[in-house]
């Protein structure tokens, strides 16, 4: 797998690279991950904290080209507290202990991977200082967005003595790359699981249990990868169906059944 910056990627892959970038930006727009704002409405404090938008083109081993969008969180570290952004993950021993219990009780196991997990999560409207998260989109990405939707044309500003074309946007979804994205997704997942009837384990914040028809169902997860187990395979089917309904609006949740899980 080789990663290229957008400009280098377009140079290497030509039109195909540009199309991939175009479709990624379209997806982010359609999911309302950000909305354009007038630079006059951006406060000094918000401008100082503004993050940059980055897009990379990745050439996969099988020759496919994928676009990866992320926000450059480097600047966020200066004004965000550690406890606001640290998201828990399950410990290795939790995965192993729950797997031993699955084996001992003869439970059926299902694993799944939630696609585009972060962008399904809403950002807080403002941070604790009352500032919105502003993302600057520059250069080729501005051209791509304007090509897709005319509305962006009204918000273009020129910076750096007229050399840089910039779009100011207000980030509304947890984009990949933002420090708090993983934490926000974790909170959303926990809330959804609790709503579905799960209770968090007291010792590992990424393990939850629920009693279904007299037997325990256990779910453990690492960011967007979930493992669920129950003695009745139908209950795992229902659980995976729930995951699909809750998180599968953008793309299908990839689930695995059977005796071997990665």
């Amino acid at each position, binding site marked *: 797998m080789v990663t290229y910056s957008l400009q280098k990627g377009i140079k290497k892959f030509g039109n195909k690279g540009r199309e991939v970038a175009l479709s990624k930006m379209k997806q982010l727009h359609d999911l309302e991950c950000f909305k354009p704002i007038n630079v006059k409405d951006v406060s000094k404090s918000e401008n100082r904290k503004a993050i940059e938008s980055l897009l990379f083109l990745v050439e996969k081993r099988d020759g496919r080209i994928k676009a990866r969008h992320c926000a450059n969180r480097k600047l966020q570290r200066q004004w965000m507290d550690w406890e606001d952004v640290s998201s828990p993950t399950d410990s*290795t*021993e939790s*995965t*192993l*202990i729950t*797997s*031993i*219990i*699955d*084996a*001992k009780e*003869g439970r059926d*196991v299902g694993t799944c991977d939630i696609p585009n997990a972060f962008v399904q999560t809403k950002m807080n409207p403002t941070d604790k200082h009352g500032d919105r998260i502003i993302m600057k989109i520059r250069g080729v990405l501005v051209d791509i967005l304007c090509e897709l939707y005319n509305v962006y044309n009204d918000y273009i500003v020129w910076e750096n003595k007229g050399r840089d074309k910039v779009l100011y946007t207000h980030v509304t979804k947890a984009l990949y790359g933002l420090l708090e994205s993983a934490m926000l997704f974790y909170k959303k997942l926990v809330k959804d699981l609790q709503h579905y009837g799960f209770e968090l384990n007291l010792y590992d914040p990424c393990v939850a249990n629920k009693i279904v028809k007299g037997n325990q169902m256990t779910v453990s997860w690492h960011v967007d990868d979930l493992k669920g187990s129950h003695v009745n395979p139908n209950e795992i089917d229902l659980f995976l169906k729930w995951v699909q309904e809750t998180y599968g609006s953008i793309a299908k949740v990839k689930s695995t059944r059977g*005796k*071997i*899980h*990665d």
Partner: protein
Amino acid sequence: MKLDLRIDGQVTIDMKDYVTTMIESFPKDVLLKGKVASPWTENLFKVDQKSKLLDNSKSEQFHTTTAQALLLCKRGRPDISPAVAFFTTRVKASTEENWNKLVRMMQYLHQSRDGVLTLKADNYKVLHWHVDAAFAVDPDFKSHTGGILTMGHGAILSYSRKQKLL
């Protein structure tokens, strides 16, 4: 890491693909030199102060392999833990002697590359810890502690590390 539940009552932790990647990124000529029965010898913690420092490329390889082994020993191959615990203390100034010890561990992994960790529970409501320590075995006379957590068969959690105070 693959979790294999095909055999009733047990789960195997399969890291064979990861071991293969480690082996492929290590110089092949030394791996095939000889057979070893264990990943280390009783001289693991003895340090030859006169041994020469490794050149840059070998030193980088030493660091990379140690980092890879650190991840491996925490999941499917706890059998290499003591060796890894020693290597992690040598990455900043690794010597030819340390390199030979690393080669031995890699030869062992090469020979046992199909090995998987099998875990079973006799009684999953009782967890057993087994802990031991060796006094003043490290080069700076610090002691070494190791322990495993099990439910009856196989180490769910294992550690092997130099003590910080004694």
